C-alpha cells in the first residue's frame, strides 16, 4: 500500500453537505478532493473532504461561506 501523509479531513452529516462542499471548493479554487472517510474516524456520511494541513484556513473559509455544518475537522494520516 501507499505511504501515508498527514492530511486535513473534514467529515459531514450527509452526502448533500459533502457535495455542497465539493462544489463550493471548486468555485472558490480551494484545494482538496472527496475521499472515503478513513476508519479512524466515523461520520454520518461516507465521503469526506481531504486537503493539505496548510489549507486549513482556506477550507474553513469555504465552509463558513456556504453554511455547511461540517461534522468534524481532523488531522490524520491518510
Amino acid at each position, binding site marked *: *500500500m*501507499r*505511504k501515508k501523509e498527514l492530511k486535513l479531513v473534514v467529515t459531514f452529516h450527509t452526502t448533500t453537505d459533502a457535495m455542497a462542499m465539493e462544489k463550493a471548493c471548486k468555485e472558490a479554487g480551494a484545494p482538496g478532493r472527496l*475521499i*472515503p472517510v*478513513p*476508519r*479512524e474516524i466515523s461520520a454520518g456520511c*461516507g465521503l469526506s473532504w481531504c486537503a493539505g494541513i496548510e489549507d486549513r484556513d482556506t477550507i474553513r473559509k469555504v465552509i463558513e461561506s456556504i453554511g455547511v455544518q461540517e461534522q468534524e475537522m481532523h488531522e490524520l494520516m491518510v
Partner: protein
Amino acid sequence: MGGIMIYMDNAATTMQKPKEVVQAVAAAMESMGNAGRGAHGASLSASRTVYDTRELLCRFFNGTSPRQIVFTANSTESLNIAIKGVLNPGDHVVTTVMEHNSVLRPLYEMEKKGVELTFVKTDERGVMDLADLEAAIRPDTKAIVCTNGSNLTGNYVDVEAVGAVAAKYNVLFIVDASQTAGVFPIDVQKMHIDILCFTGHKSLLGPQGTGGMYVREGLEVRPLLSGGSGVQTYSKTHPKEMPTALEAGTLNGHGIAGLHAAVEYLMAEGIDKIRTREQELMWRFYEGVKDIPNVKVYGDFTTKNRCPIVTLNIGEYDSSEVGDALLMDYDISIRPGAHCAPLMHEALGTVGQGAVRFSFSHYNTEEEVDTAIRAIQELSVDEE
C-alpha cells in the same frame, strides 16, 4: 490515472446499460403522456408501455397475472410496502443476518410496534444453515423475509429451499431479489414466493428509479401511500384493486419504458448466458487474488452458484484506503467501507475495517479483471 475507468461496482448499480434501454427512455421522453390519465394518444402510449412491462415482468418471474406486478422506485420502496403492509403487532418474523438495511430498518420499525424478530445466523463464510431457519419458525410466525443473494459476500441463497420451508409451515415468504433479479432465474410459483421485491437498475439493467414487486394473487397488502390513481375519483378511499392499490401517484413511465427494453434485452440474450459470463469473470478474479499473501477473501467459494461478487481486504488496511488507492492509482471503481448490511459485517468480523467489494457485469472484460488482479497484487505489498 489516465486511460479508461474500469467499473466494478455493478452490485451498486450497473453503469453500462444496453443501448436499447437508453434509446427507449429517450423515445419515451419525447412521446409519453401520463399512464391511466386519459384516452388521448400520449396517455395511451404510456399506459400501453406500462402494461406491456407488467406482462413482460410477470412472464419473467413466472407470475400468475400482470395485475400482481407493482411498480415502485426501487427495492427499498418495495420492501417497505411488503414489510409494513403485511405485518401486525404480535406477529413473529424469521429473517437472516445477511439482510440489507432496506430489510432491517423497516423490520426494526415494525419491532417497535410489537413485531418480534428472529435472526438466523451464518457461519464465518456467511452461509446460513437451512435447518436453523426451519428451527426458528414458531406457531405465531407470520413471515420469512430473506435475501436471494448477499450484497456483501455474493453468496447465493437457495430461495426455492427456503420457500419450501415457508410453504411447509404456511408462513408468508418475502424475498429481496435486489442482487439476483435479471441474472438468476426466479420463479415465484415454484419458489413459493408471496412477495418478490426487485430493483430495476442493477442486474435488470434498467434505469435508476425503477423497481417493483410481485404480490401473490389473493394476498392483501396495506398500501403505504394513497392518492391519485386515475380511477374512482369520487371515492374517499384509494382503490383496493391491484396493482392500483399499491401505486398511488404518477408512475415513472419514462423509466419503465427503459426497464421494458432492458427485460427484452435480457430475454433475447438469455440470462443463463449473461450469468455464466459474469461468473467466469468473477472466478478469474477470485483465482487471481485468493492466494496473494495478506489478502483475505470473504464468502463461500465452495459452490459454483454465486452472485458475481468478490469481497476482500488487504491485511489490516482500512477498506476505504484500498478503495481510494484503486481509484487514484488504477482508475478502478469499486465499493469499499460498510455495505448497508451491518449484521453480515458483524458475522464476517469486518465492522471496523469494512470490505473492498468487486462486482462484475457481463460488459467487463478479461483485461479489466487482470488489471484489477495486478492492482491487488501491487497494493498488497507496502511501499518502502
